[in-house]
């Protein structure tokens, strides 16, 4: 190494930086002892019996199914020394094809959550919980079940489509029948009702976004929570990414621009509640002008369509008649699909809006093409809020003897006015199978904690034809039992009819019984043993169910198409699903709390989105608490000024405001269910819209947000172009300075320096014969900003979560962040851009020469490396980094004795054993997942075969549902990354600084309407 330093040494003084530091250390009295201090001797504890499928230091992968949301993605769980340390998508699985979202990544923090219920708990006379034994607990339940009146046992579950649902039904009937209520707060009651009304089909549609070139979404948040977000993101990108000179188009019609709206080429904000009318008006134009081959039976809805002229609708919706006419023409010009709204558009007339969208698809001839139906498809498992309300009413009337709750938390996630907690108190015996002490479990008399989905045998059917298996990927962390086993055991203890009903002694046997039927159903050959083992290996079995077309139902002409409207003078509150916390079930995962909301970039709390005009009228500034009150109640949260909501709309995300559910969730933000109406709507669901008024409070909080400035200020960080520009010429990078000319003699010196630095290294060890230069390409026309990569990076790289106060000080540690910038607004079309920002691994890195201890340096394979044990924490590198991608450990996040300890027991079990957990005073940053690079190099050397393009996938690239990130060797001219880096859309961020990054961004392309 000394060679490479010759040129940096001063003319006369033969001293280099390392020597300088040594001298300084001695002069300073040697105050710092760098040698490791001898602590407690480490212990090595052998296995009693070595497991057959585990080799210490080598990961074993098991296929199972993600149960964090109803999407049901297949996952591969990476297990090291018997502990799951990372989840990745299962590439064979038809739902997600190897991809996973942030919530899926954070499932690890469910299994290792420090606030899990660790053993059965019973309520004491004082109202607290005390641990009891499983035998005692089961005995208590069996007694109560024995004494319960027939038909008075109620079972409340979340969506459990699959064998567990069947067991619950059979079990209830074995106990003299009872009621099974399925409750998912984000149910699809409105869409299901609309599908039944319009097409007479009980089941939701499949939307083939990948086959549509034009997507018209009426408030569907399909990139966030709607139906199956990972799958829909993939299908959307397949249509919408700029490739081979063309791309699809997304128009989002919704009063609040969410993440999906941010990805739209055009955002149209109608008066809240009127999007269904807009859909009808578009259908009107299509039929009027015969823009499509309109099916003959459309005559039956003639009256409805006639009444919704563009002019009439324009008056009510605020969408200009010309816009409606244009949308109709665009919609029918190429293959298209219209999407009905999700939870964020679920007002009291949501079923009518969805029906209107169905009709639009029908008149345009999309039904049977981009919209198909498979009866029985419902990702919320037939959930019904009305069912929950009936349960609450029955409880109040004393009709519920025993209530068993599994996988649902209605005390938190239902409108406060329903009073589910009070209703539960009317029930004499409540059993919860919750893994956490959530709000509903707190009301129970007995808690029989279930295994985490990663610890259990189970299956799940995310959609018809897909049977996904779950297998335990590790031993249970705590003294929990699988609820299926508990139910079977209870039947056995109870004896009599209940015991006689079940032949299976364990839930696994019960599951296998059903899988024998599945084998027959899918027509798989061979023995059951072979079928089962193959299913376990692959993660399940799947058959292609394409779905079919439909024609209008008989009663369609009688449908009413009302719009929702807020009373004069009031604002509309939109409670929208949080893309990270979902319906609140993710709130106890610190990764998801620290994950900035993709739209507002706020972490660890709630906020109220208010249009700047409205805020100015009221004199509200960002961070001021505002009180949002409706007839049902009031909530207070800090304001976030956002031009992506209409001036007559305020918006709050669902998911925060827990009063229980563990240390990460409790007492944070507000529960928006407090202001939603409790009455089930006509379609049987919750109205997530409310008429509200807002009031200033004069109290302030600094929002814990990571956005910095929301505008690019001419820096050209996240660049975009239009499709027209791409077709008519070259992409012209906007506002950015080209790198200044570097004088030739400087170029020469730089080259020589690099040459000398690496001359001999390149011929050694890992690099002998191959001289990779690792690089990355990020396609912004694919990136949706969903932030799955951010959480994957936390999981892979042992990044600590720092908490709200540290984020407020800008001390978050996210090696990879999604920067979001706004463009336009104030009269211009308002749009957002996103760009994943991580270490650029600059060839000419500003961080490297300023490090006094050579901790930041360049590796021969082109990485900008950080050597933790050298780092002394001067932070010069961070100060000199123009991309601000270096993160400093201000506290000892890895030290259990430090209040900032980020992995309280057993959360530290998820740490990746392949990389260092950094300590206080150390700078850290993206390494391009160096442990994966070195791992692949080890494998290649051991097996004697060279590394091929695509063998190394960084964690962010691996999980990206949109395939926006490509990593590889820039020195290999045939690698994907080198070919993509030459794309005409390619640019480097802050190119003018001459840092020569290894990351090339491909500018986003907007498919704007032709004016």
């Amino acid at each position: 190494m000394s060679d490479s330093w010759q040129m940096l040494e001063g003319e006369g003084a033969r001293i280099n930086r390392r020597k300088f530091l040594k001298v300084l250390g001695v002069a300073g009295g040697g105050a710092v002892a760098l040698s490791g201090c001898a602590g407690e001797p480490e212990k090595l504890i052998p296995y009693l019996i070595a497991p057959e499928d585990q080799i210490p230091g080598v990961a074993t992968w098991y296929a199972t199914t993600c149960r964090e949301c109803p999407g049901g993605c297949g996952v591969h769980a990476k297990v090291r020394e018997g502990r799951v340390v990372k989840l990745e998508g299962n590439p064979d699985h038809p739902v997600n094809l190897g991809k996973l979202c942030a919530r899926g990544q954070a499932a690890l923090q469910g299994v290792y959550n420090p606030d899990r219920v660790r053993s059965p708990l019973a309520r004491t006379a004082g109202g607290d919980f005390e641990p009891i034994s499983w035998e005692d607990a089961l005995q208590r339940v069996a007694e109560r079940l024995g004494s319960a009146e027939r038909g008075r046992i109620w079972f409340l579950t979340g969506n459990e489509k699959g064998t567990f649902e069947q067991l619950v039904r059979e079990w209830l009937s074995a106990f003299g029948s009872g009621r099974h209520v399925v409750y998912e707060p984000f149910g699809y009651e409105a869409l299901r009702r609309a599908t039944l009304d319009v097409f007479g089909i009980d089941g939701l549609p499949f939307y083939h976004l990948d086959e549509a070139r034009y997507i018209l979404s009426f408030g569907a948040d399909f990139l966030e929570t709607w139906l199956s977000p990972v799958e829909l993101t993939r299908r959307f990108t397949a249509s919408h990414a700029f490739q081979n000179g063309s791309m699809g188009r997304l128009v989002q019609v919704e009063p609040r621009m969410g993440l999906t709206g941010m990805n739209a080429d055009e955002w149209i904000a109608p008066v809240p509640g009127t999007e269904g009318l807009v859909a009808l008006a578009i259908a009107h134009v299509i039929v009027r002008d015969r823009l499509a081959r309109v099916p003959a039976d459309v005559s039956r809805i003639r009256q409805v369509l006639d009444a919704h002229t563009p002019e009439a609708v324009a008056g009510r919706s605020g969408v200009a008649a010309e816009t409606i006419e244009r949308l109709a023409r665009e919609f029918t010009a190429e293959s298209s699909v219209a999407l009905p709204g999700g939870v964020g558009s679920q007002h009291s007339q949501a079923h009518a809006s969805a029906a209107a969208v169905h009709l639009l698809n029908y008149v345009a001839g999309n039904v049977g093409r981009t919209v198909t139906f498979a009866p029985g498809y419902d990702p919320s498992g037939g959930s019904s809020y009305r069912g929950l309300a009936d349960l609450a009413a029955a409880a109040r009337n004393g009709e519920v003897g025993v209530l068993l709750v599994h996988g649902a938390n209605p005390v938190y996630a239902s409108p406060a006015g329903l009073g589910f907690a009070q209703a539960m108190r009317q029930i004499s015996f409540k059993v919860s199978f919750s893994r956490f002490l959530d709000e509903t479990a707190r009301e129970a008399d007995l808690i029989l904690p279930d295994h985490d989905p990663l610890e259990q045998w189970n299956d799940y059917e995310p959609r018809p034809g897909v049977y996904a298996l779950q297998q335990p990927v590790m031993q249970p962390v705590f003294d929990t039992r699988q609820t299926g086993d508990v139910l079977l055991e209870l039947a056995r203890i109870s004896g009599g009819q209940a015991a006689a009903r079940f032949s299976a002694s364990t839930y696994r046997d019960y599951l296998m019984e059903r899988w024998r039927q599945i084998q027959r159903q899918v027509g798989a050959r061979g023995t059951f043993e072979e079928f089962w083992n193959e299913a376990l290996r692959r993660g399940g079995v799947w058959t292609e169910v394409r779905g079919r077309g439909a024609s209008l139902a008989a009663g369609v002409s009688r449908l009413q198409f009302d719009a929702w409207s807020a009373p004069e003078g009031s604002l509309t509150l939109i409670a929208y699903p949080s893309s990270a916390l979902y319906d609140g079930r993710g709130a106890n995962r610190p990764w998801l709390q620290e994950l900035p909301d993709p739209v507002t970039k706020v972490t660890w709390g709630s906020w109220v989105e208010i249009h700047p005009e409205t805020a100015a009228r009221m004199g509200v500034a960002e961070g001021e608490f505002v009180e949002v009150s409706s007839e049902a109640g009031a909530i207070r949260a800090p304001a976030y000024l956002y031009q992506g909501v209409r001036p007559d709309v305020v918006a709050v995300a669902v998911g925060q405001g827990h009063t229980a559910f563990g240390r990460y969730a409790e007492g944070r933000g507000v529960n928006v269910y407090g202001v939603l109406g409790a009455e089930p709507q006509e379609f049987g669901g919750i109205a997530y819209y409310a008429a509200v008024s807002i009031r200033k409070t004069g109290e302030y909080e600094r929002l814990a947000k990571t956005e910095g400035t929301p505008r690019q200020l001419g820096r050209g960080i996240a660049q975009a172009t239009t499709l027209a520009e791409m077709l008519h010429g070259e992409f012209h990078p906007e506002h950015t300075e080209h790198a200044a000319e570097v004088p030739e003699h400087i170029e020469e010196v730089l080259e020589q320096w690099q040459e000398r630095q690496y001359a001999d290294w390149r011929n050694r060890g890992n690099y002998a014969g191959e001289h990779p230069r690792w690089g990355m390409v990020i396609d912004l026309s694919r990136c949706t900003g969903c932030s799955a990569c951010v959480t994957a990076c936390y999981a892979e790289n042992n990044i600590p979560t720092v908490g709200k106060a540290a984020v407020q000080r800008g001390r978050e540690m996210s090696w990879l962040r999604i920067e979001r910038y706004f463009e336009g607004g104030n009269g211009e079309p308002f749009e957002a851009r996103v760009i994943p920002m991580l270490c650029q691994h600059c060839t000419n890195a500003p961080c490297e020469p300023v490090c006094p201890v050579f901790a930041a340096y360049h590796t021969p394979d082109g990485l900008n490396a950080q050597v933790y044990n050298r780092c002394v924490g001067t932070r010069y590198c961070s100060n000199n980094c123009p991309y601000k991608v270096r993160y400093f450990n201000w506290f000892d996040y890895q030290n259990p004795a430090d209040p900032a300890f980020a992995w309280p027991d057993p959360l530290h079990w998820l740490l990746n054993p392949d990389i260092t957990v950094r300590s206080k005073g150390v700078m850290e940053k993206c390494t391009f997942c160096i442990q994966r690079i070195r791992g692949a190099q080890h494998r290649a050397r051991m097996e004697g075969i060279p590394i091929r393009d695509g063998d190394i996938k960084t964690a962010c690239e691996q999980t990206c549902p949109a395939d926006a990130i490509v990593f590889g060797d820039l020195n290999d001219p045939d690698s994907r990354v080198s070919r993509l880096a030459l794309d005409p859309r390619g640019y480097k961020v802050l190119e003018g600084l001459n840092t020569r990054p290894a990351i090339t961004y491909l500018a986003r392309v907007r498919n704007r309407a032709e004016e």
Partner: protein
Amino acid sequence: MSADFRPAARAAAAVVALLPLVLAVVWLRTPEAQQQPAEFVAPAISDTGSLEGPRQPIFFRHDIHAGQYQMDCRYCHYAVEVSPYPGLPSMETCMGCHRITGAALPEVQKLREAAGTGQAIEWVKVHNLPQFVRFPHMRHVRAEIACQTCHGPVERMPQVYQYASLKMGWCLDCHKQRQVTTDCTACHY
């Protein structure tokens, strides 16, 4: 190496001082010893307090297993060719032989007792690397570096001690000599 201040240890200081010399002699003779397997007989040891290296819960003798009986290191450290970690024999591996052999030996009785109660033995780790260093055993075995290069003449050690300094300079000396990578991130990440 940790200093030991117990009186017995102090009394045996002279022996300890001589031990490296003795071992050096043994080390030099090792190649011949390997060619003539029957030659080495592990000595009987009555004073374990004088031995170098941390005291283990069971006085397991590498010199008997690997030296006298010529057992291959990989019989117990089974993962060393495929994993960064060499692997520690499971209790079952020990019991594979000791269910039959050595029943009379007090140390074997300790082992049997532990295995019988399902209690794993907590061995004291001898070779500690700092947390920020990765050492892939499999690459070094693949490169035909003998175990003894870093671990010393384990087959002559009644009680294993840390033979090499395991400091970075020591690693680098070898890497430079063998013309292999000296890039920081080969080991530090």
